[in-house]
């Protein structure tokens, strides 16, 4: 999130796909989306191209739609890893 902030500060808009929304909130993310995924599969379940595609597309849509710094939008995709 430090790096996200530095990129944003340099004049490039950013959005982060986060598995841990409280952490990105605390560290001052400008924009984030949070699918219901474990850390390590932020962009969706392994080999689930459809879920990954939807998460990436929705993240990009929210890049444009989020209108104030620090907003985190939950995405309706869920993956529970079998550990």
């Amino acid at each position, binding site marked *: 999130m430090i*790096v996200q902030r530095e990129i944003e500060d340099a004049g*490039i*808009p*950013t*959005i982060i796909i986060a598995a841990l929304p409280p952490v*990105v909130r605390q560290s001052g993310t400008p924009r984030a989306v949070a699918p219901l995924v474990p*850390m390590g599969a932020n962009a969706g379940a392994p080999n689930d191209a459809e879920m990954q595609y939807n998460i990436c597309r929705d993240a990009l849509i929210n890049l444009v739609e989020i209108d104030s710094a620090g907003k985190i939008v939950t995405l309706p995709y869920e993956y529970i890893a079998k550990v």
Partner: protein
Amino acid sequence: MAVVKGLQSEIFVPITPPPVWTHVTKELKDMNIALVTAAGVHRKSDERFNLSGDFTFREIPDTSPSSELMVSHGGYDNADVNKDINCMFPIDRLHELAEEGFIKSIAPVHIGFMGGGGNQEKFEKETGPKIAEVLKEEGVDAVLMTAG
């Protein structure tokens, strides 16, 4: 937590830094997008990250096949990303979005680093600005990140 001017807490609490914000001025169909990940992604031929803390970063050419990418990161369970790099570095999905015209193009170089620890001051003062410079030079309009 009560906010009183001049009050000093006896307990250490994390402080959220002030907001940063750059306005989006283009539509997605006109944007050149880069991926940046804190998940420790790099090419198999690159030097691995030092798992006990590493503030360096790797440039990942967009032409790298996803089968030639790997992760070295000591801070999370790599099981999913070892099965499919797209879990943290959705490069194949980004190519699909560009082919459909959902975004205009993909930057020639993406960035991987090992987040979640390491020298925070170096990340803020050196690594972060250096990464931003690479992205600016290649004309990136917006960045899709995975981390946290």
